[in-house]
C-alpha cells in the first residue's frame, strides 16, 4: 500500500499529444477512478504508470520510490487488463503462479499464495481449468487473482467491467467493492462509465482530451462540477445547460433570467461571478412538472421517456431552450402539452463563459 505521485507527465504519439504536464497525487490505500470519454487518455495514463508505455517527460513515484525508471515487472504494480490477457495455454493455477515463478519464489510459498488468492476470490474449483473453458466473470476473477497474488503496492484495472453483460456487471461491481475491503492496496480503475466510477471509487479523476478536469469524491463531482464538461459528463441524463442573463441587483445571491424571460433565484453567491455569457445548470431531478403558474417558466413537452420508477420529460421553453425534467413514474405528461416547471433553484449551478462552475453556497463539498 503506497501513495502514487505523478509529476508533470507528458506524452505524445507521433504528432498527437496526449498529455502535457499532467500531475496527480493518490493517497496510500485510496481507490481512484479515471473517468472520461473514449480516447481521452485514461488507458495511456494507466500504461505509463505500469511501465508499458514510456512518458516523454515527468516523474512517477510510488511510496518513496521513483518507479518510472524501472522495468514494468519491478514496479510493484499489478494490472488487470480489459480483455483479461490470461495465458490461454496455462491452467488457472499456472496463470496465477506465473508472476511468482518469474520472481523466483520458493515452490511451497507459491502454492500457498495461489491457494490464498483462490480462497479470497472463490476460484478454487477452477484452478486446474484452462481459461478458454471459463465464463467472462470467471476469467475476470482469475485475472484479479493473478494480480493480487503478487501482493502489489498498486493495482491497476483497465475497464474491468466493460466486457461483462449488464447483470454480471452489477454483481461484479459489488464484488470489486468487497474485494477492495479485503485487499488493502492502492487501486486505480479506468472507466468511461460514470456509475462504476461513482459507486466504487473514493475519488474520481474526470479527464477529457488528456487533461484532468476535476478530482474529487463522487459527491463533489456530482454536486459541484468544476466546469461544463464535468457537469455534462457526470449524471444521466445530462444536466440541462441553458444560457441565462444575470439580473442586476445587489442581493448576496445571483438571480438569472432565462431566454423566455422567467427568473431563477439561485443560491450562487453573486461575488466574483462573471456578468456575461452565463449558463444555468439544472439536473433533471431539480426540474419538476406542474400546472403553469405565473412567475414560473412554462414549457411544451417534446418527448417523454418512461423508466418505470420515474419519467424523463424533455421540454422546450417559449424561446426554444431545451430543458430536461423529471416526473414521477406514473407521469400524466403528454407530448405537446404545456406545463409549468418547478425549479429547485437552490440546487442550480452557474457556469461562466470560461466553463468554470459556480455553485450554491454551503452545499456539500
Amino acid at each position, binding site marked *: 500500500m503506497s501513495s502514487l505521485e505523478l509529476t508533470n507527465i507528458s506524452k505524445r504519439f507521433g504528432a498527437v499529444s496526449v498529455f502535457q504536464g499532467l500531475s496527480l497525487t493518490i493517497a496510500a490505500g485510496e481507490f481512484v477512478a479515471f473517468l472520461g470519454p473514449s480516447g481521452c487518455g485514461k488507458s495511456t495514463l494507466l500504461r505509463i504508470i505500469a511501465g508499458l508505455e514510456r512518458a516523454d517527460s515527468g516523474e512517477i513515484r510510488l511510496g518513496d520510490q521513483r518507479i518510472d525508471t524501472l522495468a514494468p*515487472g519491478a514496479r510493484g504494480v499489478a*494490472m488487470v487488463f480489459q480483455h483479461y*490477457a*490470461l495465458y490461454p495455454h496455462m491452467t488457472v493455477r499456472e496463470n496465477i503462479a*506465473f*508472476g511468482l515463478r518469474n520472481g523466483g519464489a520458493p515452490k511451497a510459498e507459491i502454492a500457498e499464495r495461489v491457494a490464498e488468492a483462490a480462497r479470497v476470490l472463490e476460484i478454487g474449483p477452477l484452478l486446474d481449468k484452462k481459461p478458454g473453458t471459463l465464463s467472462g466473470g470467471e476469467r475476470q476473477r482469475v485475472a484479479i487473482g493473478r494480480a493480487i497474488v503478487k501482493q502489489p503496492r498498486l493495482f491497476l484495472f483497465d475497464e474491468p467491467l466493460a466486457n461483462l453483460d449488464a447483470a454480471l456487471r452489477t454483481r461484479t461491481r459489488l464484488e470489486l467493492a468487497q474485494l477492495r475491503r479485503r485487499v488493502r492496496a492502492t487501486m486505480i480503475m479506468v472507466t468511461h462509465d460514470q456509475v462504476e466510477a461513482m459507486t466504487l471509487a473514493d475519488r474520481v479523476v474526470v479527464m477529457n482530451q488528456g487533461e484532468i478536469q476535476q478530482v474529487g469524491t463522487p459527491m463533489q463531482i456530482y454536486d459541484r462540477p468544476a466546469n461544463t464538461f464535468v457537469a455534462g459528463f457526470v449524471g444521466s441524463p445530462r444536466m440541462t445547460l441553458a444560457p441565462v442573463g444575470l439580473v442586476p441587483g445587489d442581493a448576496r445571491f445571483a438571480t438569472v433570467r432565462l431566454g423566455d424571460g422567467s427568473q431563477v433565484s439561485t443560491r450562487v453567491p453573486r461575488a466574483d461571478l462573471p456578468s456575461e455569457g452565463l449558463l444555468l445548470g439544472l439536473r433533471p431531478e431539480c426540474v419538476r412538472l406542474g400546472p403553469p403558474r405565473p412567475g414560473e417558466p412554462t414549457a411544451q413537452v417534446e418527448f417523454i421517456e418512461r423508466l418505470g420508477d420515474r419519467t424523463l420529460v424533455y421540454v422546450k421553453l417559449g424561446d426554444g431552450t431545451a430543458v430536461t425534467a423529471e416526473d414521477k413514474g406514473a407521469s400524466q405528461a403528454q407530448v405537446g402539452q404545456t406545463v409549468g416547471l418547478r425549479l429547485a433553484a437552490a440546487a442550480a449551478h452557474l457556469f461562466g463563459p470560461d466553463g468554470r462552475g459556480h455553485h450554491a453556497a454551503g452545499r456539500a463539498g
Partner: protein
Amino acid sequence: MTAAGVKGPSLAGFTPAGLAGVALAAAVMITPLLWTVGLSLKPNFELMRDTSSVFGPPYTLENYRAILANSNVFRWVFNSTVVSLSTTFGVLALSSLAGYAFARLEFRGRRALFVAVLLGLAIPEQAVIIARHQMFSALHLHNTYPGLILPGLSAPFGVFLMTQYFRGIPVELDEAALLDGASHFTIFWKVLLPLTLPAQATLGIFTFLASWNDYWWPLISATRSSMFTLTVGVASSQMNFAQTSGLGYLMAQAVFASVPILIVYALFQQHIVRAVAGAATR
C-alpha cells in the same frame, strides 16, 4: 473455434447426396493407391503380359524382397531421416525466432528485411540451382549432410507463416507477462511459443513431407551412393529403362518409399487433419 474442437471423423451433418459425393471422391483417390499396392504384389513376368492379372493370384512379396536385398536401401532411409528431421527442426527453430522478431521487436530495417524475405517466396529453386551448386562445390559441401540440409533451411514461407501467427497473438499477453516480471526470452519461450504450436505442427509436417519427397537437389548434390536419400536411391536402382526391372518392382519401390510418410501420418494424424482444416476451424 480452436483446433481443440476438431474431433474424429464424423458422418453427422452430411446429407445422403453429400455422403455419396464424398464416398465417390474417396474412391477416386484411393483407386490409384490400391492399384499401386496391387501391382507391387505381382510377379513382374505376369504384369509384362497383362496388368489386369492384378485381379487374381498368384501374389508375391518377391518385389519387396528385391528392394531389401539392395544393401544400400537402409542407408538411404537413414539419410532421408537425418536430412528431413534436421531440415524440419531447423526450419521450425529459425522461422519461430525470425517470426517473433518480425512480429514483436522494433529494429532498424525491419520492414525492408521482411520484404526481402517475402521476395524469397517469389524466386523458384530452378533460378538459383546452378549458383547454389557452384557455391556448395566451392565449399566442398556436396555429398555431405550439411550439403543436403542447408538449402532447405532457407524457408521464407515458414518465416512468413510464423510472423503472421505471432502477429495474431494479442500483445496484451506480452504486456501481462512483462508485468509478471518475465524476461523477453521467457515471454518468447513460455508465453508465445506454446501458443504457436498449431502453426509449428502445420509448418513441421509440410516441411518434413517436402524434404522427404525432395528429389532434385539431392540428385544434384549427392553423387555418391552412400549419400543418396531414399528418393534418389530408389530412382537410381531403376537403371536406364525402368521397365527392365519390372513394373511390380517399380510399384513396390513407390510403396516402400512412402512407408515412412505413412508412419509420420499415423503419429501426427490429429495434427495433420488440423493443419489442413486449420483455415476453416480457426
